[in-house]
């Protein structure tokens, strides 16, 4: 560990009790510990302390703990909106300054708020927060540049079907089209195709009504981003009493909690089809997570010995450790004769999922307009996922399928054998090159998280990167809901990785939804050197808020697609300078950094960094030096490993 004086002497693994204790003490000592944090989080600053000012969080961080001040009439438009969000259970806001009345009012209501370095990253942090909690989060930015900085990230959330509330200020109604002052942009057309619903609010008296429009969309059916933009006349309008607001009804009257339930005839037909099948499999996807249907899923699977394979932007709603899990059994897919797609919002086309050509399909989805798209169905069931799985669990007969269960076990064993083969190759390549092969990173991480002292359900991973993810996905496991945020899912963006890790870490730090039992635990982030450029500055946000994580950066000096640089004159466009010190960037932003090049160094640094994250709330960037040629199957087979979907390797669908 170069130039780092902060190595903990008693570095070792940390149990849940350790981190819960440390979390509590961190909270209690938050104010007093700021100076200590500064000293412990930046070695270079410590070394230069005599002559240069040290990196430290602002004193104002203390004021986050001040009493909540909920607004009451008379209120301005922003306060009406913020109060509405609080009442609807908005779980967090991630933003950059701009849209001042709204973000200030949301903070005043006591909704957890976080300010980061770019609007796009904050948008992705909110996205990841939802992906690992199932709850609604918001992002916000200023008009024009702040808003357009979020576009790629809104695209990611849209592809992942995240219930993301996108907020932005947008000049004034009176100034429309004039280019008066600066930052004018037509926001709603810009998010066309990237959202479920959007509205520029132009009538101040309807701000409550349109808030209801927004949350109806966010809380029903298939989720996607909702985008509201606020002109100044709306956020600053004054309302003395409720009568001045249109459609001012309680949430029990402006929306319903009722969900679509399956028809009994459809369930009878599904039970009949499952009964005839020898090797039935459920693809448990996005809708299973958001409808919190994991108990119903398990009940249905266990009653009839139905295999379960996961897909989607988050993993863990069916444990990889269950004997019926096919998420780490890719060879089993081909032999499934009946597949029940549940909540598979992002539909694959024929051939994209590794099922056989004769496989029959049942699709369960709350949206009838999507059933039958891309993949011909044998039965479509319009229903909330949870309701359908509960109905199936009730209606299915008890049945054991020992042969199928044995096939699943064999397929899992074959996958583990393949992973072991890659690991052994990786060790050899690492030894030969004195650089870290990605299979070694994946396997060593897996051993640390699941095979040693940590409870295997404890650590949540924000899975990112490009080539590195192809390997780490094979070794990462999910044993409970929301344990893996599948970063690049569907939109294929690698840039938000550090931001995804931040949103994931905030969710765990606050113990939201399925993260409750692991409140305060450090999270793991995975990224590559290409992806890091887009959201790496958020390491500063980790440090500012003392949100603990260990971020693994795979540094192979190139874009993951470098093999496409076929002509000698083109190759330079695919490459970076070699051996860049991203770890020093981390140190410069108030986090820790370590630079590792061998399996032994990686192993020790992982243990040390996790320990420091758990005990001190300090995030570390592990800069893992590799080489681009590890992606060449000709030179270092298997090179860029193949994806098989659905299952643990899924990220297309």
């Amino acid at each position, binding site marked *: 560990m170069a130039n780092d004086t902060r190595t903990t002497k008693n570095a070792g693994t940390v149990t849940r009790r350790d981190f819960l204790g440390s979390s509590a003490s961190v909270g209690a000592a938050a104010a007093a510990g700021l100076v200590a944090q500064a000293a412990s989080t930046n070695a270079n600053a410590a070394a230069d302390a005599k002559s240069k000012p040290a990196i430290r969080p602002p004193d104002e961080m203390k004021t986050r703990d001040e009493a909540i001040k909920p607004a009451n009439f008379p209120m301005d438009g922003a306060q009406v909106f913020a109060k509405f969000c609080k009442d609807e259970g908005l779980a967090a806001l991630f933003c950059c300054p701009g849209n001042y009345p709204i973000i200030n009012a949301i903070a005043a209501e006591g909704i957890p708020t976080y300010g980061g370095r770019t609007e796009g990253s904050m948008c992705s942090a909110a996205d990841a927060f939802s992906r690992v909690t199932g709850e609604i989060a918001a992002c916000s930015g200023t008009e024009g540049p702040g808003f357009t900085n979020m576009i790629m990230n809104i695209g990611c959330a849209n592809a992942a079907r995240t219930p993301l509330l996108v907020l932005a200020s947008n000049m004034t109604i009176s100034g429309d089209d004039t280019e008066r002052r600066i930052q004018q942009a037509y926001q709603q057309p810009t998010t066309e195709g990237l959202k479920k619903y959007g509205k520029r609010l132009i009538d101040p008296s309807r701000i409550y009504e349109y808030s209801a429009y927004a949350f109806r969309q966010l809380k029903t059916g298939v989720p996607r981003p909702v985008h509201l933009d606020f002109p100044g006349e709306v956020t600053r309008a004054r309302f003395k009493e409720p009568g001045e607001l249109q459609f001012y009804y309680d949430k029990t009257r402006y929306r319903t909690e009722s969900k679509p339930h399956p028809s009994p005839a459809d369930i009878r037909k599904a039970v009949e089809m499952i009964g005839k099948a020898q090797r039935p499999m459920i693809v448990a996807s996005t809708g299973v997570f958001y409808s919190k249907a994991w108990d119903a899923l398990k009940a249905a699977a266990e009653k009839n010995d139905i295999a379960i394979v996961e897909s989607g932007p988050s993993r863990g709603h069916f444990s990889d450790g269950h004997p019926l899990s096919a998420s780490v059994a890719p060879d089993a897919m*081909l032999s499934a004769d009946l597949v029940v797609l549940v909540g598979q919002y992002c539909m694959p086309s024929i051939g994209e999922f*590794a099922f056989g050509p004769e496989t029959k399909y049942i699709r369960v989805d709350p949206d009838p307009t999507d059933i039958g798209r891309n993949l011909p169905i044998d039965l479509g069931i319009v229903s909330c996922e949870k309701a359908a799985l509960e109905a199936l669990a009730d209606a299915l007969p008890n049945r054991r399928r020992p042969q199928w269960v044995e096939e699943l076990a064999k397929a899992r064993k074959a996958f583990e054998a393949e992973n072991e083969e890659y690991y052994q190759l990786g060790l050899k390549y690492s030894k030969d090159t004195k650089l870290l092969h990605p299979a070694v990173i994946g396997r060593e991480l897996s051993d640390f998280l699941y095979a040693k002292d940590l409870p295997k359900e404890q650590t949540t991973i924000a899975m990112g990167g490009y080539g590195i993810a192809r390997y780490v996905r094979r070794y990462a496991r999910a044993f409970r809901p929301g344990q893996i945020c599948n970063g690049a899912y569907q939109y294929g963006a690698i840039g938000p990785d550090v931001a995804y890790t931040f949103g994931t870490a905030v969710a765990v730090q606050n113990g939201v939804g399925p993260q409750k039992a692991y409140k305060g635990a450090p999270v793991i982030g995975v990224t590559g050197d290409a992806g890091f450029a887009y959201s790496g500055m958020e390491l500063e946000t980790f440090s500012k808020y003392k949100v603990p994580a260990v971020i693994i950066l795979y540094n192979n000096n190139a874009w993951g*697609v470098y*093999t*496409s640089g076929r002509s000698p004159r083109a190759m330079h466009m695919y490459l970076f300078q070699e051996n860049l010190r991203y770890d020093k960037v981390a140190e410069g932003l108030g986090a820790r950094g370590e630079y590792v090049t061998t399996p032994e160094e990686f192993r020790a640094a992982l243990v040390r960094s996790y320990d420091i994250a758990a005990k001190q709330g300090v995030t570390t960037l592990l800069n893992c030096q590799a080489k681009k040629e590890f*992606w060449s*199957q000709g030179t270092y*087979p298997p090179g860029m490993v193949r994806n098989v979907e659905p299952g643990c390797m899924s990220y297309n669908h």
Partner: protein
Amino acid sequence: MLNRHLAAAFATAMVCMTASLDAADSPLIESKAAAKNGKATYLRLCQYCHGVDGKAHENIDFQATNLTELEGWKRGTQPQQIFNSIKNGAGDDMPAFKTKATDDEIWQLVAFILSIGPEDRRPKND
């Protein structure tokens, strides 16, 4: 006896007609049924990079080969060469599939790949 001679002559003629078939090539590459079976394997193993239609227009990972045109094939266009590329991998990007498919499945795959290429290379036998 005459019929037996005719049959032998017919068989010889058939071999001559399929002159592109090397001695090591499998007869499966001339079979439409094999090509149909090969499509299932193709969808499972190949379409991720080469696309559902073989044109590789949608691969964002790297520039995979367009299997419907012979230009740009870097490891040879003959059936045995295609077989070898599938079985043992090719170049930086194409992995080996020898543990994912049997030799017969790979030959069926070759038949399918020929079936989406130029007319004169397509399997002819029912």
